[in-house]
């Protein structure tokens, strides 16, 4: 594996409200090379916030702190807002869940695409337009002219998400964070969008962080999986060794999934254990 693209050590994110302090992320550490890393968790596990922290998008009353957060050798925590802005979009990008909401509804798609280039010094208008159209074709949009002139609400869900991917990849970043990129799409469209993303990430040699609640999806798509629960990583496992998961939470999640060769009459529901919040894996499994 190449030198790590992203190193995160002991990430903490706190939200200070007038009444109490909410700890959304409690000591998350991981490294990422030019590979696909999945982060799986339920709502409230802190997975989305982890992704946003990397881009330093967490705003007050949120507070981000970490022992280390390095991207390609650059210390992300020490950068000024201006320097961070130069990294955002051009070196690290993020695809969000629902294009209905994540695209500006009153701006034409073409303009939003070229903006991604313009803020990083894109060049002449026609050159940017060409690149935008080329990118649209790369995400398999057949009529790039029309889409460039369209407004987001005129596009179907799958198309909108492909536009989002195009928009985020057009400046050619090294790391892509995908936050539930297919959760808002129809099942039939999901695989197609994933395939497109997969091809692009592979062909450009990018790193990918895939955040989702869907363990099975993540397992098929990524190389490694991090399982998060209540703001901590409870298990780190390679995707093709998922069945060997040790943490009871992960095991419970896998158990809940229906399998085609299933002989069970009822699917089990996850039985939560209060110890999962703070105990380490070793403590839970009694040491290995």
């Amino acid at each position, binding site marked *: 594996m190449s030198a790590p693209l992203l190193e995160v050590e002991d990430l903490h994110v706190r939200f200070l409200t007038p009444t109490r302090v909410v700890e959304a992320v409690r000591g998350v550490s991981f490294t990422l090379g030019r590979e696909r890393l999945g982060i799986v968790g339920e709502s409230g596990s802190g997975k989305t916030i982890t992704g946003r922290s990397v*881009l330093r*998008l967490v705003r007050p009353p949120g507070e981000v702190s970490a022992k280390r957060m390095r991207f390609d050798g650059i210390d992300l925590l020490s950068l000024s807002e201006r320097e961070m802005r130069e990294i955002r*979009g051009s070196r690290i990008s993020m695809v969000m*869940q629902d294009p209905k*909401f994540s695209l500006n509804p009153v701006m034409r798609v073409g303009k939003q695409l070229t903006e991604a280039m313009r803020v990083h010094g894109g060049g002449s208008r026609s050159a940017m337009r060409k690149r935008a159209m080329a990118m649209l074709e790369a995400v398999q949009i057949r009529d790039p002219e029309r889409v460039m002139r369209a407004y987001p609400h005129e596009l179907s869900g799958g198309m909108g998400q492909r536009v*989002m991917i195009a928009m985020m990849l057009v400046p050619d970043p090294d790391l892509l964070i995908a936050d539930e990129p297919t959760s808002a799409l129809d099942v039939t469209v999901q695989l197609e969008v994933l395939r497109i993303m997969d091809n692009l990430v592979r062909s450009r040699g990018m790193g990918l962080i895939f955040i989702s609640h869907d363990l099975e999806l993540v397992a098929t798509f990524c190389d490694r999986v991090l399982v998060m629960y209540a703001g901590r990583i409870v298990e780190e496992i390679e995707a093709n060794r998922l069945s060997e998961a040790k943490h009871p939470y992960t095991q419970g999640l896998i158990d809940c999934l229906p399998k085609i060769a299933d002989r069970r009459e009822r699917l089990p529901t996850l039985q939560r254990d209060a110890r999962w919040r703070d105990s380490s894996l070793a403590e839970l499994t009694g040491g290995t």
Partner: protein
Amino acid sequence: MSDAQGARRRISAAGSGLRQARATRLLFGVSRTLISLAITFLGLLLITFIIGRVVPIDPVLSIVGERASQAQIDQVREQLGLNEPLMTQFGYYIWDVLHGDFGRSLMTSQPVIDDIARFFPATLELATLATIVGVLFGVPGGVLAAVHQGRWPDQAIRVFGLFGYSMPVFWLGLMGLLIFYGELGWVGGPGRLDATYELMYEYDVPTVTGAVLIDSALAGAWDIFRNALSHVILPSLVLGYFSLAYISRMTRSFMLEQLSQEYVTTARVKGAPEWRVIWVHALGNVLIPLITVIALSYASLLEGSVLTETVFAWPGLGLYITNALFSADMNAVLGGTVVVGLVFISLNLLSDLLYRVVDPRAR
């Protein structure tokens, strides 16, 4: 024809079908609004008609005087159509109004409609300038308040705006006159022009729009223009303050809503500078509902003109109506009410339509 070409043909055919559907929807929306407008206007006419008939002063006596004979009174009653059933009278009334016939004014002895045409532009001039002030200061103010939500700029702007909701406009006008005209002499006093310039304006400046600023500028009469400017600046700022209070409050509210939307995060993820995120992305979405707000603000300024014009002796429709009130000139009062009412109603109902025209999602 290749597969792609066929597909493209189907897409564009579907597209034009879609466009047709959208156009039909828009047409529906427009006609529905116009019908609403017509019904509401009818309601307004009904009310002014009733008011006109409820007036204690017998309209006949006001024409023939108290010493007329019974025959004369009967004749005039016949002429005025007062012997007809009420519904028919209402019908005549609607007919007259639609033809612009509001009767004759007691004060000016002119047809009321002519008076209205003469005085309305002044009111429009003031309302327009005040709205410009309101937008120019209110929109950035609201944006800043939203961006700094909870901190002192927000509190300050909100309180400043809140004062605007609590102050009587005529009182602020008087205070303005007292301080800036009486004490400091920085601006012109009541009225549109100084007396000397008034005469020059009457004779030398052709009436194009009825607005002193525009007409004098068009005629190149710059001394008149400057004098008019010194007179209009205080009432514009005073009225503008109220417009500003409303507009900044709504802008702030819309802005807060937009800033919590996902596309704002997308823009930040792209690395766009914060000013662009706020003033291009978020504000772009705010401007659409803001159009409705601006139209409503304009309407309320028109309504408040009765008070402001009294304070500033501004020769607009508001002053006309108030003077008519004291002269018991019901024709003028009702005529003015109908006209202001119609513009007010139109702005209220059409602002809704305007929203739909401007929003790309609704087209």
